[in-house]
């Protein structure tokens, strides 16, 4: 029996969050420091997870298994593979940054704010490490409660509308997935994902299960046309909430496609891949155009997130088209790695951009693009960071944003020229909306007295953005550390998704 590292990673933040809440708002600085220590410990605990992970194996590692509900054959069953590991690292990393970023900014009920993020962290790690479908679902849904409170309590003016919309949208998608999971359980007699992978299913069953999963994951990603909750939630959420939403919660959708849809319903995925690819390309092109006309910085980044997540879903499903076009599965792994790298990269870049907007918002209390202009004159260091992250968002080579997009476009080329053509439009559109945003906000003459009075980054903000900048560049220059870890798992996944269950 090895040390239960995954349990530690899941429960330490949850228990830490509860303690932080009990510390209460009468001692805010104690609650802050305590939360930071817990988040840092979780980040520290994820280091041995990475170091101890055997990157040459596709098997679940750090497995923990104990009976949970024996009558349902559902176990407390945790484990990580090459898909889950990077996402867990992203979670622990982002949470520390979010805690630091909210340090003095949050004045109302700070202890509950930090507690909510710690509890979120534990639940998200639970989602990524659960190898039992029921356990997965419990974490998946439980996550909604802290996020509901984060947006609702600390959000902007229309926060209540946004948070209820967020909750109901995602809840609606998830309950359909629940029906599919229960159905699979009744077919297999076991809630473990491994049993679901083995279960033979007829085409009708697969299509219905696929659609149920699709309802859950497409809302989370989010894909057109069920994306409308995201701009609202992002805009109204406090900075930390936007960061966690963009960096991790959206990844749950992509993770779900990789973990559930592709291996459990391979034939339905093959049959319905046109639906996913079509919606992904619409997201890339149409939402890219929508992002162009936004007046609100957060909304612009939110739409840009939807467009970028379109690459993730495209990369997940383009493999089937590659088989049709070339007859071999060689390019499918490429698409999947592209999707994974894109998820991690988007987590870093969009998180960083939301933090940049947060920095400006904390000073001038507006997110309107029109209220800024010439920020670089008063905040040169901030301007440099903002430009870097904007470049990463536009997919400049050398930044992490380039790697994922490049891999997915490469894979799309193998499937069809037109997929690649439409996907590559993002290079133009993405550059257009992000660079135009930078031009209007950062460059130019000082627009008004507000901008003139701006003070540059303080040490705390510099630390957060600096760490993110290093991560973005490191991943862009040397993505091999990431792709090596997931390569065997993705190859195994390609085998699963290409093997018919009929």
């Amino acid at each position, binding site marked *: 029996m090895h040390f239960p590292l995954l349990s530690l990673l899941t429960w330490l933040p949850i228990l830490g969050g509860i303690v932080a809440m009990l510390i209460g708002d009468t001692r805010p600085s104690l609650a802050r420091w305590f939360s930071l220590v817990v988040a840092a410990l979780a980040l520290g605990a994820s280091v041995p997870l990475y170091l101890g992970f055997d990157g040459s194996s596709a098997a679940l590692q750090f497995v923990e298994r104990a009976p949970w*509900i024996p009558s349902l054959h559902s176990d407390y069953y945790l484990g990580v593979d090459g898909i889950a590991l990077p996402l867990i690292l992203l979670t622990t990393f982002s949470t520390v940054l979010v805690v630091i970023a909210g340090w003095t900014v949050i004045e109302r009920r700070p202890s509950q704010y930090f507690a909510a993020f710690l509890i979120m962290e534990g639940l998200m790690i639970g989602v990524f490490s659960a190898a039992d479908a029921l356990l997965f679902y419990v974490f998946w*849904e439980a996550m909604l409660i802290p996020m509901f409170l984060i947006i*609702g309590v600390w959000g902007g003016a229309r926060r*209540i509308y946004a948070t*209820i919309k967020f909750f109901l949208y995602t809840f*609606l998608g998830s309950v359909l997935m629940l029906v599919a999971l*229960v*159905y699979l359980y*009744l077919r297999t007699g076991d809630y473990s994902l491994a049993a679901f992978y083995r279960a033979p299913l007829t085409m009708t069953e697969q299509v219905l299960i696929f659609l149920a999963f699709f309802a859950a994951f497409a809302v989370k990603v989010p894909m057109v046309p069920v994306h409308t909750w995201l701009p609202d939630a992002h805009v109204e959420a406090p900075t930390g909430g936007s960061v966690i939403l963009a960096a991790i919660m959206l990844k749950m959708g992509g993770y779900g496609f990789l973990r559930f849809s592709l291996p459990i319903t391979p034939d339905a995925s093959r049959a319905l891949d046109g639906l996913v690819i079509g919606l992904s390309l619409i997201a890339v092109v149409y939402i890219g155009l929508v992002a162009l006309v936004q007046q609100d910085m957060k909304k612009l980044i939110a739409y840009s997130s939807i467009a970028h997540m379109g690459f993730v879903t495209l990369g997940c499903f383009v493999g089937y088209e590659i088989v049709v076009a070339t007859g071999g599965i060689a390019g499918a792994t490429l698409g999947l790695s592209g999707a994974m790298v894109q998820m991690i990269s988007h987590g870093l870049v969009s998180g960083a951009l939301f933090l940049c907007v947060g920095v400006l918002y904390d000073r001038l209390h507006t997110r309107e693009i029109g209220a800024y202009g010439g920020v670089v004159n008063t905040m040169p260091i901030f301007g440099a960071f903002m430009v870097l992250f904007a470049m990463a968002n536009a997919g400049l080579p050398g930044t992490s944003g380039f790697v994922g997009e490049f891999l997915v476009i490469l894979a799309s080329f193998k499937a069809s020229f037109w997929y690649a053509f439409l996907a590559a439009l993002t290079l133009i559109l993405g550059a257009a909306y992000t660079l135009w945003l930078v031009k209007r906000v950062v460059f130019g003459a000082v627009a008004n007295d507000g901008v003139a009075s701006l003070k540059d980054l303080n040490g705390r903000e510099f630390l957060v953005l600096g760490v993110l900048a290093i991560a973005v560049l490191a991943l862009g220059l040397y993505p091999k550390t990431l792709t090596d870890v997931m390569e065997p798992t993705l190859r195994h996944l390609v085998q699963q998704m290409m093997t018919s269950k009929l």
Partner: protein
Amino acid sequence: MNPIPAYDFALAAPELWLLGATCLILLVDLLLSDRQRHFTYLLSLVTLVLTAVLVAGLPDGRRLAFNGMFVVDGVARLLKLVATGTVAVVFVYSRDYLVQRGLFRGEYFVLMLFATLGIFVMTSAGSLLTLYMGIELLALSQYALVAFDRDSPVAAESAMKYFVLGAIASGTLLYGISIIYGVTGTFDLGALATRLDAGAASQIGLLFGLAFLLAGIAFKFGAVPFHMWIPDVYHGAPTSVTLFLGAAPKLAYFALALRVLAEGLGSVVSAWQGMLVVLAVLSMAVGNVVAVAQTNLKRMLAYSTISNVGFILLGILAGTPGGYRAALFYTITYVLMALGSFAMIVLLSRKGFEADQIEDFRGLAQRHPWFAWMMLFLMVSTAGVPPFVGFFAKLYVIQAVLDVGLTWLAVAAVLFSVIGAFYYLRVVKVMFFDAPAGDVAVSAGPALRILLSLNALAVLALGIFNSSLVETIAKALP
């Protein structure tokens, strides 16, 4: 008729004790002055504790007494224990509320104990007649309890409405029973099961009787379209009575459905399954949709009851042992959640002020964060969000329905629960996101505070560790 052996009385010991003790309390209460009324309260609690001890001492397995009129089996034992606990909790919850309103009178406790006796008789019914006796004892006590605040015109109106509609429902039920007797020649549930085979499902006489019987059961449960009384009665009754109405009797009505449908008419599932499907879907639809429009928390919870009854019916209509177990799990956990939710109203109410508007919970998270979290647990659990127990209750029911191939029904159920999530969230929204209005004071004593906290925490704990409850239920309902 055989002479009744003494052993039969031993099996009915909890009921006999409860009856004797309640009559005694009624007499003792006459001799007490208002200042000594707490003695009645204590006596009632002691009575319940001893009843629970007697129930726990009942022999294992399925035993028949009084020529099969009276059954003691696993379900009966479990339901009696839960009912005793529920009523005891209701007493503790309502004490301060009653004292503040001058309603702290002996009759309150005596009536509730008689209602408990009715629940006991129903859970142990081996024949349709025993069942009917239990129903009437429970119903008559409830009519009186609703009108307990006799100076309140709303309460009197509710009681009147409840009484008239309840009498019609009882009549319907009795009519159904008499027709079933006419068709089969027996009141005995065991004999009914052996005399009916699957072919009887198309017998017109039986179907005719069954329709009336089901209408009666649906009325008691409050399933749509027999739900009209629920919001008015829950709203009109004093909150301490609503506490009781919303919780304990559900256990008895589950027993009613189980005894009649599963035991007596189990062989003709196909005859009643379709009717229950209609009742369940309508209840979930109407309950959830109409609850959205409520501004009064008691009315909202009343409609929430209606929708939850729809879920309980889902488990029953599956007609499988797994389905009955799921419905029992749902009933017990629902009782726990309803008890806590109504108790929150009691907690925030004080002399001259009923906190029964949703608006009254505004800003609770800032004034009393602890109780705001407890209410959040209860609301989110009732909405069916994991890891709270309400999620698992829904999971088991949906699993039972999927198991018999009614996939569309499972999908309908989860979609209605999304609608339901909205109004539970609205309560959370009011507590956490809105600024406090006026002073939200908690004047309740420590007993209520501690018990209510335990109640809400149990909703979380039973969710994460629900296998013990699942196993208890599996043992009770093999």
